[in-house]
């Protein structure tokens, strides 16, 4: 359903993405792991053109796009078919929780107001924050803001939701709420690509794990394989550093 081939991207002289490819099927939960500076966030951002790739092809919903030569209409189409959840939530500070969600429905997708409100309320209900519908972001905790961010993403019924380290800015005790919402979405079959450092989420929820470093995909596979029998030394090093008690089968 979503396929990207050979994305390349440089910031100045530094090549941050060097031929990254990815295939996502309907209902997949793809988790991208990797040390900071590995290019995972840039990769995710290039999927909806928050970052312009220097090279690369993307096939979304059967339509092929050259990521280096997108026109305004293509960008808008891609963005209408995807949704993005940000590390810093990025809720609109001048809008209430429900208005944050309505923006994408009423303004971007031109849904009638009443229908949009019903969808937005259902989305708020799903993340457990319907009682906060008229609160402004500044009145909500980080975890609540991120759940509104997720509600804003699911409300537009995108083909795929892109999560950029959705729990990294949260206090430890608030992470659980956000992760359980994401887990629920995964169980409902919503297609997600998630950049995260939450290893438990990667292990328990993902059906495909990608390990990136230095702008390359080092290794990818089913979480069972990546977490217990990583093939690459680099992956092993990373995982053992992040999860000290990880048991990796010795390579025979």
């Amino acid at each position: 359903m979503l396929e990207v081939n050979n994305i390349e991207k440089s910031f100045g002289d530094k090549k941050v993405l060097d031929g990254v490819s990815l295939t996502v099927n309907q209902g997949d939960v793809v988790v991208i792991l990797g040390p900071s500076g590995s290019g995972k966030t840039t990769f995710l951002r290039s999927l909806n053109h928050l970052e312009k790739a220097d090279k690369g092809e993307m096939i979304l919903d059967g339509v092929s796009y050259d990521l280096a030569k997108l026109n305004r209409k293509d960008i808008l189409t891609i963005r209408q078919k995807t949704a993005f959840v940000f590390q810093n939530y990025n809720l609109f500070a001048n809008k209430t929780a429900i208005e944050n969600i309505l923006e994408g429905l009423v303004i971007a997708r031109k849904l009638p107001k009443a229908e949009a409100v019903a969808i937005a309320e259902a989305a708020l209900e799903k993340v457990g924050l319907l009682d906060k519908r008229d609160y402004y972001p500044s009145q909500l905790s980080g975890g609540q803001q991120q759940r509104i961010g997720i509600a804003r993403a699911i409300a537009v019924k995108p083909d795929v939701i892109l999560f950029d380290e959705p729990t990294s800015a949260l206090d430890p005790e608030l992470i659980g709420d956000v992760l359980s919402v994401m887990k629920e979405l995964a169980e409902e079959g919503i297609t997600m690509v998630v950049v995260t450092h939450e290893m438990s989420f990667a292990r328990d929820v993902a059906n495909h794990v990608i390990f990136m470093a230095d702008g390359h995909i080092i290794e990818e596979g089913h979480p069972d394989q990546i977490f217990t029998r990583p093939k690459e030394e680099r992956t092993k090093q990373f995982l053992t550093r992040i999860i000290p008690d990880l048991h990796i089968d010795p390579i025979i």
Partner: protein
Amino acid sequence: MNFQYILETFIKALSGIPVTLGITVVSIILSFIPALFLALGRLYKVKGVTKFAIVYLAFIRSTPPILLILFFYSLFPSLLNNLLKSTSINVFDLNPIIYAFVIFSLMTTGTLSEIIRSAILTVDKGQLEAAQAIGLTNTQAYLRIVFPQAIKSALPNLCNLVINLVKGTSLVFVMTVKDITAIAKIEAAYGYHYFESYFVIFVIYILICGLIQLVFHFLEKKVAII
């Protein structure tokens, strides 16, 4: 102190208010689009715009308003007249208030572009990205998300700008434009009532600027989110 005179001058000087406010309002209206263009051009690092904006700002900031007035009123018409010699247009018939519009627009454009630019910078870029990611066009994102928040941080600076402009327009008496100051000066010279006349315009400026501050105070309360 001649209270009768003060009252009469006060009423006469009031007739200069439309001129003073007219120059202020017209300058802000005329400079808004160029200022927005300069501000966005700089924020988006549009080739040429940044350089132009920096040079323009440096130039306009370092020029005393009175110099601009002297140039436009005393030199510019003669230059223009030379150019238009063959036509039937008489440059010297031009109402000098037009020059006032031009001068104060040129100055306001510089200040306003910096106010707009810094106000936009106070809105976290992430919100613009979120708006784009959700499928809004750039224009929609700016109009619905960025500008409403930017205006909040711009208001105190805008208030300063308007007040400085109102006070700054008092220089137009040099160009025989009859604003508040010009009227009072004429009255003062007529009967040697300098103190009374200047006291009158002092009061009028305080009233106008006080009112402007009240309006902005009200606006700031109005745009406060919670």
